[in-house]
Protein backbone atom coordinates (compact mmCIF):
# COMPACT_ATOMS: atom_id res chain seq x y z
CA UNK A 1 0.00 0.00 0.00
CA UNK A 2 1.36 3.33 -0.95
CA UNK A 3 1.50 5.78 1.92
CA UNK A 4 0.61 9.00 0.24
CA UNK A 5 0.49 10.93 3.47
CA UNK A 6 3.50 13.16 3.79
CA UNK A 7 5.48 13.10 7.01
CA UNK A 8 5.80 16.86 6.93
CA UNK A 9 4.28 19.34 4.54
CA UNK A 10 5.34 22.96 4.83
CA UNK A 11 3.43 25.15 2.40
CA UNK A 12 4.36 28.75 1.72
CA UNK A 13 4.92 29.63 5.32
CA UNK A 14 5.84 33.14 6.20
CA UNK A 15 6.77 34.68 9.51
CA UNK A 16 6.96 38.41 9.95
CA UNK A 17 8.26 40.01 13.13
CA UNK A 18 7.39 43.55 14.08
CA UNK A 19 10.26 45.33 15.72
CA UNK A 20 9.69 48.55 17.54
CA UNK A 21 6.42 50.33 18.21
CA UNK A 22 3.12 50.22 16.39
CA UNK A 23 3.70 53.41 14.47
CA UNK A 24 7.45 53.65 14.18
CA UNK A 25 8.53 50.02 14.05
CA UNK A 26 9.75 48.00 11.10
CA UNK A 27 8.71 44.61 9.93
CA UNK A 28 11.23 41.86 9.45
CA UNK A 29 10.29 38.92 7.28
CA UNK A 30 12.23 36.14 8.94
CA UNK A 31 10.79 33.37 6.80
CA UNK A 32 9.40 34.08 3.34
CA UNK A 33 7.06 31.69 1.51
CA UNK A 34 9.02 28.56 2.31
CA UNK A 35 7.78 25.36 0.72
CA UNK A 36 9.05 21.84 1.19
CA UNK A 37 7.82 18.36 1.98
CA UNK A 38 9.22 15.24 3.54
CA UNK A 39 7.87 11.85 2.67
CA UNK A 40 6.97 9.17 5.17
CA UNK A 41 7.82 6.14 3.06
CA UNK A 42 11.58 6.40 3.48
CA UNK A 43 13.28 8.28 6.29
CA UNK A 44 15.53 11.09 5.12
CA UNK A 45 17.91 13.68 6.46
CA UNK A 46 16.96 17.09 5.20
CA UNK A 47 19.41 19.89 5.85
CA UNK A 48 18.54 23.54 6.32
CA UNK A 49 21.77 25.36 5.67
CA UNK A 50 22.41 29.05 6.06
CA UNK A 51 24.27 31.68 7.96
CA UNK A 52 23.04 33.62 10.96
CA UNK A 53 20.02 35.70 10.09
CA UNK A 54 18.97 33.25 7.40
CA UNK A 55 15.80 32.27 9.23
CA UNK A 56 16.64 28.61 9.75
CA UNK A 57 16.11 28.67 13.51
CA UNK A 58 12.84 30.57 13.10
CA UNK A 59 11.72 27.95 10.59
CA UNK A 60 12.54 25.20 13.10
CA UNK A 61 10.51 26.91 15.80
CA UNK A 62 7.60 27.31 13.41
CA UNK A 63 7.61 23.60 12.61
CA UNK A 64 7.79 22.73 16.31
CA UNK A 65 4.93 25.16 16.86
CA UNK A 66 6.87 27.13 19.46
CA UNK A 67 5.87 30.33 17.66
CA UNK A 68 2.89 31.23 15.46
CA UNK A 69 2.90 31.57 11.68
CA UNK A 70 1.98 34.77 9.95
CA UNK A 71 0.56 32.77 7.08
CA UNK A 72 0.92 29.44 5.33
CA UNK A 73 0.32 25.93 6.63
CA UNK A 74 2.24 23.13 8.26
CA UNK A 75 0.90 19.60 8.23
CA UNK A 76 2.38 16.69 10.11
CA UNK A 77 0.99 13.41 8.77
CA UNK A 78 -2.16 15.18 7.68
CA UNK A 79 -2.70 17.05 10.95
CA UNK A 80 -2.62 20.82 10.90
CA UNK A 81 0.10 21.72 13.37
CA UNK A 82 -1.15 25.23 13.91
CA UNK A 83 -4.46 23.97 15.23
CA UNK A 84 -2.94 22.03 18.09
CA UNK A 85 -4.33 23.68 21.19
CA UNK A 86 -5.01 21.38 24.12
CA UNK A 87 -2.43 19.54 26.15
CA UNK A 88 -3.33 16.08 24.91
CA UNK A 89 -2.87 17.04 21.28
CA UNK A 90 0.31 18.85 22.12
CA UNK A 91 1.74 15.82 23.91
CA UNK A 92 0.78 13.67 20.95
CA UNK A 93 2.64 15.99 18.62
CA UNK A 94 5.69 16.29 20.85
CA UNK A 95 5.88 12.53 21.06
CA UNK A 96 6.31 12.38 17.30
CA UNK A 97 8.49 15.45 16.78
CA UNK A 98 11.38 16.16 19.14
CA UNK A 99 14.08 18.86 19.11
CA UNK A 100 17.79 18.76 19.80
CA UNK A 101 19.32 22.05 20.84
CA UNK A 102 22.56 23.73 19.98
CA UNK A 103 24.25 24.24 23.32
CA UNK A 104 24.60 20.96 25.22
CA UNK A 105 25.48 22.78 28.43
CA UNK A 106 22.32 24.85 28.36
CA UNK A 107 20.09 21.96 27.34
CA UNK A 108 20.21 20.60 30.86
CA UNK A 109 19.71 22.37 34.18
CA UNK A 110 23.19 22.69 35.71
CA UNK A 111 21.78 22.01 39.17
CA UNK A 112 20.01 18.79 38.22
CA UNK A 113 21.34 15.38 37.33
CA UNK A 114 20.94 14.72 33.59
CA UNK A 115 19.22 11.37 34.02
CA UNK A 116 16.17 13.08 35.55
CA UNK A 117 15.17 14.32 32.11
CA UNK A 118 15.49 10.85 30.67
CA UNK A 119 13.33 9.34 33.37
CA UNK A 120 10.80 12.16 33.09
CA UNK A 121 10.49 11.65 29.33
CA UNK A 122 10.06 7.90 29.75
CA UNK A 123 7.32 8.30 32.31
CA UNK A 124 5.47 11.28 30.85
CA UNK A 125 5.05 9.73 27.42
CA UNK A 126 3.97 6.45 28.91
CA UNK A 127 6.91 4.55 27.49
CA UNK A 128 7.77 3.01 30.83
CA UNK A 129 5.05 1.86 33.14
CA UNK A 130 6.65 0.94 36.43
CA UNK A 131 9.76 2.00 38.26
CA UNK A 132 11.86 -0.94 37.14
CA UNK A 133 11.15 -0.85 33.46
CA UNK A 134 12.04 2.88 33.39
CA UNK A 135 15.66 1.98 34.03
CA UNK A 136 15.54 -0.39 31.10
CA UNK A 137 14.00 2.16 28.75
CA UNK A 138 16.55 4.81 29.69
CA UNK A 139 19.45 2.40 29.38
CA UNK A 140 18.28 1.27 25.93
CA UNK A 141 18.02 4.86 24.73
CA UNK A 142 21.51 5.63 26.03
CA UNK A 143 22.96 2.55 24.41
CA UNK A 144 21.54 3.55 21.07
CA UNK A 145 23.69 6.66 21.22
CA UNK A 146 26.79 4.89 22.38
CA UNK A 147 26.50 5.57 26.10
CA UNK A 148 25.09 3.55 29.01
CA UNK A 149 23.03 4.20 32.12
CA UNK A 150 26.01 3.33 34.26
CA UNK A 151 28.11 6.11 32.75
CA UNK A 152 25.44 8.73 32.98
CA UNK A 153 23.46 7.90 36.10
CA UNK A 154 23.70 10.44 38.88
CA UNK A 155 25.87 12.80 36.86
CA UNK A 156 25.56 16.55 36.68
CA UNK A 157 26.00 18.29 33.31
CA UNK A 158 29.41 19.67 34.15
CA UNK A 159 30.72 16.17 34.79
CA UNK A 160 30.21 15.22 31.15
CA UNK A 161 31.83 16.62 28.02
CA UNK A 162 29.96 18.61 25.38
CA UNK A 163 29.94 15.64 23.04
CA UNK A 164 28.60 13.29 25.70
CA UNK A 165 25.91 15.76 26.75
CA UNK A 166 24.77 16.18 23.20
CA UNK A 167 24.44 12.43 22.91
CA UNK A 168 22.39 12.33 26.09
CA UNK A 169 20.21 15.03 24.53
CA UNK A 170 19.67 12.82 21.47
CA UNK A 171 18.93 9.82 23.69
CA UNK A 172 16.30 11.80 25.53
CA UNK A 173 14.70 12.86 22.28
CA UNK A 174 14.59 9.25 21.10
CA UNK A 175 12.77 7.83 24.12
CA UNK A 176 9.22 8.68 22.93
CA UNK A 177 10.06 7.01 19.60
CA UNK A 178 9.62 10.10 17.43
CA UNK A 179 9.35 10.02 13.66
CA UNK A 180 11.03 13.36 13.18
CA UNK A 181 13.95 14.97 14.94
CA UNK A 182 14.68 18.63 14.48
CA UNK A 183 18.32 19.23 15.31
CA UNK A 184 19.25 22.91 15.51
CA UNK A 185 23.00 23.25 14.99
CA UNK A 186 23.65 20.15 17.10
CA UNK A 187 27.40 20.11 16.54
CA UNK A 188 28.41 23.73 16.25
CA UNK A 189 29.36 23.91 19.92
CA UNK A 190 31.27 20.66 19.81
CA UNK A 191 34.92 20.61 18.78
CA UNK A 192 35.44 20.03 15.07
CA UNK A 193 37.33 16.81 15.71
CA UNK A 194 34.52 15.34 17.84
CA UNK A 195 31.64 16.21 15.54
CA UNK A 196 31.76 13.03 13.54
CA UNK A 197 30.57 10.84 16.39
CA UNK A 198 27.33 12.82 16.67
CA UNK A 199 26.96 13.18 12.92
CA UNK A 200 27.53 9.46 12.39
CA UNK A 201 24.91 8.83 15.05
CA UNK A 202 22.33 10.78 13.05
CA UNK A 203 23.18 8.77 9.97
CA UNK A 204 22.74 5.55 11.91
CA UNK A 205 19.43 6.66 13.39
CA UNK A 206 18.05 7.27 9.95
CA UNK A 207 19.30 3.97 8.59
CA UNK A 208 18.46 1.63 11.43
CA UNK A 209 15.67 3.31 13.39
CA UNK A 210 13.84 4.95 10.51
CA UNK A 211 13.88 8.42 12.06
CA UNK A 212 13.76 11.40 9.69
CA UNK A 213 15.87 14.34 10.67
CA UNK A 214 15.80 18.02 9.84
CA UNK A 215 19.43 18.99 10.32
CA UNK A 216 20.06 22.69 10.72
CA UNK A 217 23.61 23.88 10.30
CA UNK A 218 25.96 26.39 8.79
CA UNK A 219 28.63 23.72 8.33
CA UNK A 220 28.32 22.48 4.76
CA UNK A 221 30.92 19.77 5.19
CA UNK A 222 28.90 17.79 7.74
CA UNK A 223 25.75 18.57 5.76
CA UNK A 224 27.29 16.99 2.68
CA UNK A 225 28.32 13.99 4.72
CA UNK A 226 24.90 12.97 5.97
CA UNK A 227 22.08 14.68 4.09
CA UNK A 228 19.88 13.38 1.39
CA UNK A 229 18.46 16.76 0.45
CA UNK A 230 19.53 20.25 1.35
CA UNK A 231 17.97 23.70 1.27
CA UNK A 232 20.18 26.78 1.30
CA UNK A 233 18.56 29.67 3.14
CA UNK A 234 19.29 33.35 2.76
CA UNK A 235 17.38 36.04 4.66
CA UNK A 236 14.32 33.87 5.02
CA UNK A 237 14.22 32.42 1.52
CA UNK A 238 15.12 29.03 0.13
CA UNK A 239 17.52 30.05 -2.63
CA UNK A 240 18.38 26.53 -3.73
CA UNK A 241 16.98 23.18 -2.72
CA UNK A 242 17.54 19.67 -3.95
CA UNK A 243 19.62 16.49 -3.58
CA UNK A 244 22.75 17.27 -1.67
CA UNK A 245 25.03 15.78 -4.29
CA UNK A 246 23.70 18.18 -6.90
CA UNK A 247 23.43 21.29 -4.81
CA UNK A 248 26.86 21.10 -3.22
CA UNK A 249 28.89 19.56 -6.03
CA UNK A 250 27.40 21.66 -8.82
CA UNK A 251 25.84 24.68 -7.17
CA UNK A 252 23.63 26.85 -9.33
CA UNK A 253 22.76 29.82 -7.15
CA UNK A 254 25.61 32.36 -6.81
CA UNK A 255 25.16 32.37 -3.01
CA UNK A 256 25.51 28.60 -2.82
CA UNK A 257 28.69 28.88 -4.88
CA UNK A 258 30.26 31.44 -2.58
CA UNK A 259 29.13 29.52 0.49
CA UNK A 260 30.68 26.34 -0.78
CA UNK A 261 33.95 27.99 -1.71
CA UNK A 262 34.25 29.65 1.67
CA UNK A 263 34.22 26.38 3.58
CA UNK A 264 37.85 25.91 4.65
CA UNK A 265 39.25 22.56 3.69
CA UNK A 266 41.58 20.61 5.98
CA UNK A 267 43.96 20.12 3.10
CA UNK A 268 46.94 22.21 2.15
CA UNK A 269 47.19 24.01 -1.12
CA UNK A 270 43.51 24.92 -1.37
CA UNK A 271 43.62 28.42 0.03
CA UNK A 272 41.05 30.99 -0.98
CA UNK A 273 42.02 33.17 -3.86
CA UNK A 274 39.36 35.80 -4.31
CA UNK A 275 38.66 38.45 -1.75
CA UNK A 276 35.24 38.35 -0.23
CA UNK A 277 32.76 41.17 0.07
CA UNK A 278 31.08 41.30 3.48
CA UNK A 279 27.77 43.03 4.02
CA UNK A 280 27.71 45.97 6.39
CA UNK A 281 24.44 46.13 8.18
CA UNK A 282 22.11 43.13 8.32
CA UNK A 283 19.05 45.28 8.51
CA UNK A 284 19.89 46.78 5.11
CA UNK A 285 19.97 43.41 3.43
CA UNK A 286 16.66 42.36 4.95
CA UNK A 287 15.00 45.53 3.80
CA UNK A 288 16.16 45.14 0.20
CA UNK A 289 13.65 45.23 -2.58
CA UNK A 290 14.14 42.48 -5.10
CA UNK A 291 16.59 39.67 -4.53
CA UNK A 292 18.11 39.77 -1.07
CA UNK A 293 21.49 38.74 -2.42
CA UNK A 294 21.72 41.50 -5.01
CA UNK A 295 23.98 43.58 -2.80
CA UNK A 296 26.85 41.14 -2.96
CA UNK A 297 26.09 38.92 -5.94
CA UNK A 298 28.91 38.68 -8.49
CA UNK A 299 26.38 38.00 -11.27
CA UNK A 300 23.90 40.68 -10.34
CA UNK A 301 21.64 42.07 -13.08
CA UNK A 302 19.31 45.05 -13.16
CA UNK A 303 16.18 43.01 -12.64
CA UNK A 304 17.63 41.55 -9.44
CA UNK A 305 17.39 44.91 -7.72
CA UNK A 306 13.74 45.36 -8.59
CA UNK A 307 12.01 42.02 -8.57
CA UNK A 308 12.17 39.14 -6.14
CA UNK A 309 13.03 36.08 -8.28
CA UNK A 310 10.67 33.14 -8.55
CA UNK A 311 11.55 29.51 -7.94
CA UNK A 312 12.65 27.67 -11.05
CA UNK A 313 12.92 23.92 -11.40
CA UNK A 314 16.37 23.29 -12.84
CA UNK A 315 18.23 20.00 -12.98
CA UNK A 316 16.40 18.23 -10.12
CA UNK A 317 16.35 21.23 -7.82
CA UNK A 318 14.62 24.51 -7.28
CA UNK A 319 16.66 27.68 -7.63
CA UNK A 320 15.41 31.14 -6.75
CA UNK A 321 17.46 33.24 -9.14
CA UNK A 322 16.81 35.42 -12.18
CA UNK A 323 19.78 33.85 -13.94
CA UNK A 324 17.63 30.84 -14.71
CA UNK A 325 14.50 32.69 -15.74
CA UNK A 326 14.98 32.70 -19.49
CA UNK A 327 15.96 29.08 -19.98
CA UNK A 328 13.42 27.56 -17.66
CA UNK A 329 10.44 29.84 -18.12
CA UNK A 330 8.14 26.89 -18.36
CA UNK A 331 9.24 25.21 -15.19
CA UNK A 332 8.17 27.93 -12.80
CA UNK A 333 7.00 26.76 -9.43
Amino acid at each position, binding site marked *: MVNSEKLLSVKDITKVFSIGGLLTGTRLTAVNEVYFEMGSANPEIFTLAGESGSGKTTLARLILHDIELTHGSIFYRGTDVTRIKNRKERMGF*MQRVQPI*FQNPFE*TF*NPLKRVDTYLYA*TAVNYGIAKSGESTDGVVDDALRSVGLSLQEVQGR*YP*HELSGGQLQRVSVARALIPRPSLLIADEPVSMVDASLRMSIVNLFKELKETSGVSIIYITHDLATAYYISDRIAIMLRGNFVEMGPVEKVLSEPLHPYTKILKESVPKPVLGEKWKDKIELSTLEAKEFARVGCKFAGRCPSVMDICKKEDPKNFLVDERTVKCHLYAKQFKNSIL
Partner: protein
Amino acid sequence: MISTIKNLYEHDRRFRFAFIVIIGIIIFSSLSFFSPYDPSSSYDVPSDQPPSIKYFFGTSSRGQDILWKMTFAIRNSLLFGISTALLSRIISILVGLTAGYKGGIGDRILMSINDSFIVIPMLPLLILFNFIFQEKMNLFLLSLIMACLGWAWDARLIRSQVLSLKEREFTRTAVYSGMKSLPITLKEHLPFVMPIVFATMINNMLWSMGLEVSLAVLGLSDTDTPTIGTTIYWANQHQALVAGVWWWIAAPIVISTFLFVGLYLLFASLNQYIDPRTRLLRIGG
Protein backbone atom coordinates in the same frame (compact mmCIF):
# COMPACT_ATOMS: atom_id res chain seq x y z
CA MET B 1 22.24 18.48 56.18
CA ILE B 2 24.67 17.53 58.94
CA SER B 3 27.53 17.41 56.47
CA THR B 4 26.59 20.83 55.14
CA ILE B 5 26.72 22.29 58.63
CA LYS B 6 29.97 20.52 59.36
CA ASN B 7 31.46 21.77 56.10
CA LEU B 8 30.48 25.34 56.75
CA TYR B 9 31.55 25.17 60.39
CA GLU B 10 35.05 24.15 59.43
CA HIS B 11 35.63 26.57 56.62
CA ASP B 12 33.64 29.70 57.19
CA ARG B 13 34.56 31.82 60.18
CA ARG B 14 31.40 33.85 60.00
CA PHE B 15 29.31 30.73 60.10
CA ARG B 16 31.20 29.35 63.04
CA PHE B 17 30.60 32.47 65.09
CA ALA B 18 26.98 32.78 64.03
CA PHE B 19 26.29 29.12 64.64
CA ILE B 20 27.64 29.23 68.17
CA VAL B 21 25.78 32.41 68.98
CA ILE B 22 22.45 31.24 67.56
CA ILE B 23 22.65 27.82 69.19
CA GLY B 24 23.49 29.53 72.44
CA ILE B 25 20.51 31.82 72.14
CA ILE B 26 18.18 28.96 71.24
CA ILE B 27 19.35 26.98 74.26
CA PHE B 28 18.86 30.06 76.36
CA SER B 29 15.34 30.53 75.11
CA SER B 30 14.47 26.89 75.72
CA LEU B 31 15.33 27.39 79.36
CA SER B 32 11.98 29.16 79.48
CA PHE B 33 10.33 25.76 79.80
CA PHE B 34 12.13 25.26 83.09
CA SER B 35 11.41 28.67 84.46
CA PRO B 36 10.40 28.63 88.09
CA TYR B 37 8.38 31.77 87.54
CA ASP B 38 5.31 32.38 85.45
CA PRO B 39 6.18 34.96 82.74
CA SER B 40 3.41 37.39 83.56
CA SER B 41 3.71 37.25 87.32
CA SER B 42 5.46 39.99 89.24
CA TYR B 43 6.94 40.62 92.66
CA ASP B 44 8.31 37.12 92.96
CA VAL B 45 11.72 38.32 94.00
CA PRO B 46 13.12 41.49 95.60
CA SER B 47 13.09 44.41 93.14
CA ASP B 48 15.93 46.43 91.71
CA GLN B 49 18.68 44.02 92.62
CA PRO B 50 21.85 44.44 90.51
CA PRO B 51 23.35 41.43 88.69
CA SER B 52 24.81 38.90 91.07
CA ILE B 53 25.37 35.20 91.38
CA LYS B 54 21.85 34.72 92.66
CA TYR B 55 20.17 36.93 90.09
CA PHE B 56 22.42 36.65 87.06
CA PHE B 57 20.91 39.55 85.13
CA GLY B 58 19.58 41.31 88.18
CA THR B 59 15.92 41.95 88.95
CA SER B 60 13.47 44.49 87.60
CA SER B 61 11.43 47.11 89.40
CA ARG B 62 8.49 44.77 89.25
CA GLY B 63 10.23 42.10 91.18
CA GLN B 64 10.95 39.80 88.28
CA ASP B 65 14.11 37.82 87.76
CA ILE B 66 15.41 39.28 84.52
CA LEU B 67 17.26 36.13 83.53
CA TRP B 68 14.12 34.03 83.44
CA LYS B 69 12.12 36.88 81.98
CA MET B 70 14.61 37.11 79.11
CA THR B 71 14.28 33.41 78.35
CA PHE B 72 10.64 34.03 77.59
CA ALA B 73 11.32 37.29 75.83
CA ILE B 74 13.86 35.76 73.47
CA ARG B 75 11.69 32.75 72.85
CA ASN B 76 8.71 34.86 71.91
CA SER B 77 10.69 37.23 69.75
CA LEU B 78 12.29 34.35 67.89
CA LEU B 79 8.99 32.60 67.34
CA PHE B 80 7.47 35.87 66.22
CA GLY B 81 10.27 36.47 63.71
CA ILE B 82 10.18 32.93 62.37
CA SER B 83 6.43 32.83 61.92
CA THR B 84 6.31 36.22 60.20
CA ALA B 85 9.14 35.24 57.89
CA LEU B 86 7.65 31.85 57.05
CA LEU B 87 4.19 33.21 56.37
CA SER B 88 5.43 36.02 54.20
CA ARG B 89 7.79 33.66 52.31
CA ILE B 90 4.86 31.48 51.42
CA ILE B 91 2.97 34.44 50.04
CA SER B 92 5.94 35.86 48.14
CA ILE B 93 6.88 32.50 46.62
CA LEU B 94 3.32 31.86 45.50
CA VAL B 95 2.92 35.30 44.01
CA GLY B 96 6.39 35.49 42.50
CA LEU B 97 6.37 32.04 40.92
CA THR B 98 2.86 32.37 39.56
CA ALA B 99 3.40 35.82 38.11
CA GLY B 100 6.75 34.84 36.62
CA TYR B 101 5.65 31.63 35.05
CA LYS B 102 2.18 32.56 33.88
CA GLY B 103 2.95 35.94 32.46
CA GLY B 104 0.32 37.85 30.51
CA ILE B 105 -2.70 39.30 32.24
CA GLY B 106 -2.33 37.22 35.40
CA ASP B 107 1.17 38.56 35.84
CA ARG B 108 0.06 42.14 35.39
CA ILE B 109 -2.79 41.83 37.87
CA LEU B 110 -0.56 40.22 40.45
CA MET B 111 2.13 42.84 39.99
CA SER B 112 -0.31 45.72 40.39
CA ILE B 113 -1.43 44.24 43.70
CA ASN B 114 2.19 43.64 44.57
CA ASP B 115 3.29 47.18 43.88
CA SER B 116 0.44 48.56 45.91
CA PHE B 117 1.70 46.62 48.88
CA ILE B 118 5.23 47.88 48.38
CA VAL B 119 4.24 51.51 48.65
CA ILE B 120 2.01 51.15 51.71
CA PRO B 121 3.62 52.93 54.64
CA MET B 122 3.85 50.29 57.32
CA LEU B 123 4.27 52.07 60.58
CA PRO B 124 1.10 54.19 60.29
CA LEU B 125 -0.81 51.11 59.19
CA LEU B 126 0.45 49.06 62.11
CA ILE B 127 -0.41 51.84 64.52
CA LEU B 128 -3.87 51.91 62.95
CA PHE B 129 -4.32 48.16 63.38
CA ASN B 130 -3.24 48.50 66.94
CA PHE B 131 -5.94 51.03 67.63
CA ILE B 132 -8.51 48.85 65.93
CA PHE B 133 -7.68 45.72 67.82
CA GLN B 134 -6.48 47.20 71.10
CA GLU B 135 -6.78 44.52 73.74
CA LYS B 136 -7.35 41.77 71.23
CA MET B 137 -3.95 42.47 69.75
CA ASN B 138 -1.63 39.62 70.52
CA LEU B 139 1.70 38.59 69.18
CA PHE B 140 0.34 36.07 66.74
CA LEU B 141 -2.08 38.56 65.24
CA LEU B 142 0.73 41.05 64.86
CA SER B 143 2.82 38.41 63.14
CA LEU B 144 -0.01 37.67 60.72
CA ILE B 145 -0.49 41.33 59.88
CA MET B 146 3.21 41.88 59.29
CA ALA B 147 3.44 38.78 57.13
CA CYS B 148 0.69 40.16 54.93
CA LEU B 149 2.60 43.40 54.57
CA GLY B 150 6.14 42.14 54.12
CA TRP B 151 6.02 39.87 51.07
CA ALA B 152 5.81 42.27 48.17
CA TRP B 153 9.42 43.27 47.64
CA ASP B 154 10.69 39.72 47.62
CA ALA B 155 7.86 38.52 45.40
CA ARG B 156 9.14 40.82 42.72
CA LEU B 157 12.65 39.48 43.12
CA ILE B 158 11.43 35.93 42.74
CA ARG B 159 9.34 36.85 39.72
CA SER B 160 12.26 38.39 37.85
CA GLN B 161 14.38 35.35 38.56
CA VAL B 162 11.66 33.10 37.15
CA LEU B 163 11.26 35.32 34.10
CA SER B 164 14.90 34.91 33.18
CA LEU B 165 14.83 31.18 33.89
CA LYS B 166 11.90 30.71 31.54
CA GLU B 167 14.08 31.80 28.64
CA ARG B 168 16.78 29.28 29.29
CA GLU B 169 17.08 26.25 27.09
CA PHE B 170 16.64 23.68 29.83
CA THR B 171 13.10 24.96 30.36
CA ARG B 172 12.38 23.96 26.78
CA THR B 173 13.98 20.58 27.38
CA ALA B 174 11.68 20.10 30.34
CA VAL B 175 8.66 20.99 28.19
CA TYR B 176 9.68 18.47 25.54
CA SER B 177 10.24 15.87 28.24
CA GLY B 178 6.52 16.13 28.83
CA MET B 179 6.68 18.03 32.11
CA LYS B 180 3.72 20.22 33.03
CA SER B 181 4.00 23.84 34.14
CA LEU B 182 3.87 23.24 37.87
CA PRO B 183 6.55 20.52 37.97
CA ILE B 184 8.74 22.69 35.77
CA THR B 185 8.45 25.63 38.12
CA LEU B 186 9.09 23.46 41.16
CA LYS B 187 11.82 21.19 39.85
CA GLU B 188 13.64 23.35 37.33
CA HIS B 189 13.27 26.86 38.61
CA LEU B 190 12.91 26.58 42.36
CA PRO B 191 16.53 25.47 42.96
CA PHE B 192 17.62 28.78 41.49
CA VAL B 193 15.04 30.69 43.46
CA MET B 194 15.90 29.09 46.82
CA PRO B 195 18.92 31.25 47.60
CA ILE B 196 16.76 34.33 47.22
CA VAL B 197 14.05 32.81 49.39
CA PHE B 198 16.54 31.89 52.03
CA ALA B 199 18.30 35.21 52.08
CA THR B 200 15.06 37.12 52.19
CA MET B 201 13.75 34.90 54.98
CA ILE B 202 16.44 35.83 57.41
CA ASN B 203 16.23 39.38 56.19
CA ASN B 204 12.53 39.32 56.88
CA MET B 205 13.11 37.92 60.36
CA LEU B 206 15.44 40.75 61.16
CA TRP B 207 13.00 43.28 59.79
CA SER B 208 9.99 41.97 61.62
CA MET B 209 11.74 41.54 64.95
CA GLY B 210 13.18 45.01 64.65
CA LEU B 211 9.81 46.48 63.81
CA GLU B 212 8.23 44.65 66.74
CA VAL B 213 10.80 46.18 69.05
CA SER B 214 9.98 49.64 67.70
CA LEU B 215 6.26 49.08 68.10
CA ALA B 216 6.61 47.59 71.55
CA VAL B 217 8.74 50.42 72.82
CA LEU B 218 5.96 52.73 71.71
CA GLY B 219 3.50 50.55 73.58
CA LEU B 220 1.76 49.42 70.42
CA SER B 221 2.46 45.73 70.69
CA ASP B 222 1.09 43.14 73.04
CA THR B 223 2.56 44.48 76.26
CA ASP B 224 1.53 41.53 78.36
CA THR B 225 3.59 39.02 76.46
CA PRO B 226 7.29 39.26 77.21
CA THR B 227 9.39 40.00 74.13
CA ILE B 228 12.57 41.94 73.61
CA GLY B 229 10.53 44.99 72.74
CA THR B 230 8.06 44.79 75.60
CA THR B 231 10.84 44.28 78.11
CA ILE B 232 12.35 47.57 77.00
CA TYR B 233 8.88 49.13 77.10
CA TRP B 234 8.31 48.16 80.69
CA ALA B 235 11.80 49.22 81.64
CA ASN B 236 11.07 52.62 80.16
CA GLN B 237 7.70 52.78 81.92
CA HIS B 238 9.52 52.37 85.21
CA GLN B 239 12.17 54.86 84.10
CA ALA B 240 14.81 52.25 84.64
CA LEU B 241 17.77 54.26 83.39
CA VAL B 242 16.91 57.25 85.53
CA ALA B 243 16.38 55.02 88.53
CA GLY B 244 19.73 53.41 87.97
CA VAL B 245 18.34 49.99 87.12
CA TRP B 246 20.48 49.83 83.97
CA TRP B 247 20.60 46.06 83.84
CA TRP B 248 16.91 45.93 82.98
CA ILE B 249 17.59 47.70 79.67
CA ALA B 250 21.04 46.27 79.09
CA ALA B 251 19.93 42.65 79.14
CA PRO B 252 17.46 42.80 76.21
CA ILE B 253 19.71 45.10 74.19
CA VAL B 254 22.84 43.01 74.55
CA ILE B 255 21.11 39.73 73.84
CA SER B 256 19.19 41.08 70.86
CA THR B 257 22.38 42.57 69.44
CA PHE B 258 24.02 39.17 69.53
CA LEU B 259 20.90 37.65 68.03
CA PHE B 260 20.70 40.09 65.14
CA VAL B 261 24.39 39.95 64.32
CA GLY B 262 24.36 36.19 64.54
CA LEU B 263 21.36 35.93 62.23
CA TYR B 264 22.90 38.29 59.75
CA LEU B 265 26.18 36.36 59.59
CA LEU B 266 24.24 33.14 59.28
CA PHE B 267 22.37 34.53 56.33
CA ALA B 268 25.48 35.84 54.63
CA SER B 269 27.44 32.61 54.90
CA LEU B 270 24.57 30.26 54.07
CA ASN B 271 23.60 32.44 51.15
CA GLN B 272 27.04 32.20 49.66
CA TYR B 273 27.03 28.46 50.18
CA ILE B 274 23.71 27.91 48.43
CA ASP B 275 24.41 30.32 45.58
CA PRO B 276 24.35 28.26 42.35
CA ARG B 277 27.75 29.55 41.38
CA THR B 278 29.62 28.39 44.44
CA ARG B 279 27.44 25.33 44.54
CA LEU B 280 28.89 24.29 41.23
CA LEU B 281 32.40 24.77 42.51
CA ARG B 282 31.52 22.65 45.50
CA ILE B 283 30.12 19.79 43.45
CA GLY B 284 33.38 19.95 41.56
CA GLY B 285 32.45 21.83 38.43
